[in-house]
């Protein structure tokens, strides 16, 4: 345990020092690594720990992004105040989706499909209702002052992403140590046995999706503030859902550090393949090459490493 704690501290120190020595380009890459690890963790808490695999987690991300942006652009809220409101909206959407689908008894792949459907419905709605400005998307006026949740120096977004990532890991750690976490794992492993042991399976699943929705929505606001623009495809596109799921599965679903490890791995692959593709003429037309590699990796991991990359470092898998 103390060795692990030491390792964490060294990792954290390295992450804090990194942007001080790295060029701006790499600071941005690092920021994305931490950000994706954060939203991946929000997926992981519901999909990894509780086994409620969602294919449409982006619905929470987009809800967060749109809530804070609308409050800011249309109603003139300060983005820092809009942030908790966005999380609340994400929590509400999580709660509603959970109540509807778990009340109907949807499990496993049916639950995954219904979340995908919800995300698509939200995307289409965002495309058509007036208050999101439809397909035009929403632009946040650039005014790079910290009070506006905008920073001239990318280093601040990096540190904010680092903070989010650390907080999400602490949340996951707290969950694994608590009764709540033990119940989630029991539900993942065997719902009937969990019910027999007095667990209110429905209530716990609703709780975890609400928490997960709030976390993911926080990521949505962060993203909108970083790029100052969202549209229905960015906010509710299926690729982000896949990204969240992928980093968790690659790193190790249901583990505290899985999403972070997955995010680092996938980003490194992404950057390397991009570099390779730009150098090797034969690969010029294979765009993006990273998706090919992702696909191969996912197949290998599902077939060979069901516990994810983290499984390589552990002789005995310890899920939560």
């Amino acid at each position: 345990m103390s060795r692990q704690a030491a390792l964490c501290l060294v990792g954290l120190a390295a992450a804090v020092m990194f942007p001080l020595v790295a060029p701006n380009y790499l600071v941005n890459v690092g920021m994305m690594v931490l950000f994706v690890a954060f939203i991946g963790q929000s997926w992981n808490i519901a999909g990894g720990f509780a086994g409620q695999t969602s294919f449409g987690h982006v619905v929470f991300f987009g809800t967060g992004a749109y809530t804070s942006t609308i409050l800011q652009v249309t109603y003139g809220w300060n983005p820092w105040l809009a942030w908790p409101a966005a999380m609340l909206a994400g929590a509400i959407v999580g709660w509603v989706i959970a109540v509807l689908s778990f009340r109907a008894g949807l499990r496993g792949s049916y639950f995954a499909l219904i979340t995908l459907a919800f995300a698509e419905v939200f995307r289409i709605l965002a495309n058509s209702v007036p208050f999101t400005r439809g397909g035009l998307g929403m632009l946040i006026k650039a005014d790079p002052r910290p009070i506006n949740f905008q920073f001239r120096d990318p280093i601040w977004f990096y540190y904010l992403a680092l903070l989010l990532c650390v907080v999400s890991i602490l949340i996951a750690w707290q969950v694994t140590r608590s009764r709540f976490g033990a119940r989630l794992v029991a539900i993942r492993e065997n719902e009937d046995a969990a019910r027999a042991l007095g667990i209110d399976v429905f209530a716990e699943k609703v709780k975890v999706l609400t928490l997960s929705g709030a976390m993911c929505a926080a990521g949505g606001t962060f993203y909108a503030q970083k790029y100052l623009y969202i549209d229905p495809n960015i906010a509710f596109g299926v690729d982000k859902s896949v990204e969240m799921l992928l980093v968790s599965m690659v790193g190790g679903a249901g583990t505290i550090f899985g999403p972070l490890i997955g995010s680092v791995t996938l980003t490194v692959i992404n950057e390397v393949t991009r570099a390779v593709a730009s150098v090797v003429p034969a690969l010029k037309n294979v765009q993006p090459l990273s998706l090919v590699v992702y696909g191969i990796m996912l197949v290998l991991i599902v077939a060979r490493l069901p516990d994810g990359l983290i499984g390589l470092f552990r002789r005995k898998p310890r899920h939560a």
Partner: protein
Amino acid sequence: MLEVHELSKSFGGLKAVDQASLDVREGEIVGLIGPNGAGKTTLFAAIAGFQPPDAGRVAFAGQDITGLAPHKICAAGMVRTFQITQPFAKISVRENIMVGAYFHTADSKLARREAEAVAGMVGMTGQLDQMGADLTVAGRKRLELARALATGPRLLLLDEVMAGLNPTEITEIVQVIRDIRESGITILLIEHVMQAVTSLAERVYVLNQGRMIADGTPAAIAQDPQVIEAYLGHGAAKVMRA
């Protein structure tokens, strides 16, 4: 303590349980036997809230619990185990049992201590760090028992905890069940292994084709012509007497 009154449960046109009644008094070990497909497990599921009954009443400790959700029935003090064992495969035996102990405490240290104590009771102290998936059949049966026990029940519903065990393992688990009763927990068990039932249970109910056809002491049941016919076929009772 447990009173089941004329409980019925159908699946489509099949009456799996047909107006079955039984009662269990505090401190007893009661057996529920019957041929394959008699409806024993369905009756259990209906009592424990897994399958809401179509008709009839279930009362536990003076409280009507008919059709309540399993977690509420568990809160009242009644827990079931499964015939087909359902271990949480990817966590350790200790963590498996802790899930049960968490039923009455949110404190993980306390849950851990209790899990270890319960493991001692069912003879699993040496296997606390094994994964649920790595257990033998006998180990899984014990784990079912331990997890249910950890919730702190007053009445345990055991569904065929001895099926698939060898004679040595049966002797061991019979002793474990006796110890559990000695600690003040009432037990209702479904069993196939007749010898185990007769050595454990004070009273036995016999279910056949969804109906309760007999009840009484194990010795009386073994003489009952209806029971013999249910098990061995029509006319068997006459042959046995001859």
